[in-house]
């Protein structure tokens, strides 16, 4: 008489959340202004986020392994929950960076927020159309960052809950199948 495992005893992995470490969002911030970098880093830390700041789109692409010098090996473990980039930067703009990110299979799901000190409607429209999660006018407010963080945590929580619910249903299904098979 085999021992039928009850659903709770089945191995249900806890690592279904996309959060790298519990409750801490990891944000990649890109800005060529040293003052703005210091500022956004502080805003994010105060909002309890883990922060990586880089000073150019080139470095951002390097960090993500999208600069053509790497295969995708080693970057699958890189857990980024949000990318915030300045729009106007020398070389490649934040908009172009976002397009590169959206083209990559590894990172296209990561929300990208564009920041700019200029309130130019066509620019904002273009960014949002291309898939920007949000467009923030500089100087960025702490309230903006908190709002972003909360909506991301909520989205993660929802998808986590959905996954756990699904697994529960599957486990219950298996359990009842096994039970029936025993009869």
């Amino acid at each position, binding site marked *: 008489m085999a021992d039928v495992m009850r659903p709770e005893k089945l191995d249900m992995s806890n690592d279904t959340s996309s959060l790298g470490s519990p409750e801490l969002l990891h944000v990649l911030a890109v800005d060529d*202004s*040293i*003052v*703005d970098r*210091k*500022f956004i880093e*502080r*805003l994010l830390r*105060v909002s309890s986020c883990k922060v990586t700041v880089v000073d150019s789109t080139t470095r951002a692409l390097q960090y993500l392994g999208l600069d053509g010098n790497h295969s995708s090996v080693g970057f699958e473990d890189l857990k980024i929950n949000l990318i915030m980039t300045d729009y*106007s930067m*020398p070389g490649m703009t934040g908009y172009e960076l976002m397009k590169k990110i959206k083209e990559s299979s590894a990172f296209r799901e990561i929300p990208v927020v564009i920041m700019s*000190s200029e309130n130019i409607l066509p620019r904002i429209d273009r960014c949002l159309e291309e898939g920007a999660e949000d467009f923030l006018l500089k*100087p960025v*407010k*702490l309230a903006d960052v908190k709002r972003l963080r909360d909506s991301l945590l909520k989205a993660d929580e929802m998808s986590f809950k959905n996954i756990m619910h699904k697994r529960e249903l599957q486990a219950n299904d298996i359990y009842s199948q096994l039970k029936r098979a025993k009869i």
Partner: protein
Amino acid sequence: MQRQVALIKQSLFDQGYLDDQFIELEELQDDANPNFVEEVAALYFKDSPRLINSIDQALERGSFDFNRLDSYMHHIGASKVKTECTMFREYCRVGNAEGCLRSFQQLKKEHAILRKKLDHYFQLARQAGPKEAARRSK
């Protein structure tokens, strides 16, 4: 002393040298980071002179590459200095060389004044005790 600090801060606001952004910065200060505002100001005055120099050199050469001038000016904006920045960038946009020169001279003046005033303010604030300086004057 603390009241003096508060008064100076208020007058900086009244004269347009500081705006709400300063308050936002102060709200990011805490016990672990009591001097954040001063650090940001220090960074700004380390970074902006470099940009001002670039513009100076370009204008001296008689080089009116308005796009480039505009991109230098992009990062210099800080309250009263910002007004001059905006005017400079507007002159760039319409290709008005004389306007650029004029507003740039004014900007350099405002930048120097702002620096002096903030240096003085932060010095006093440090003497008065960091925690008091971080408190907002309303």
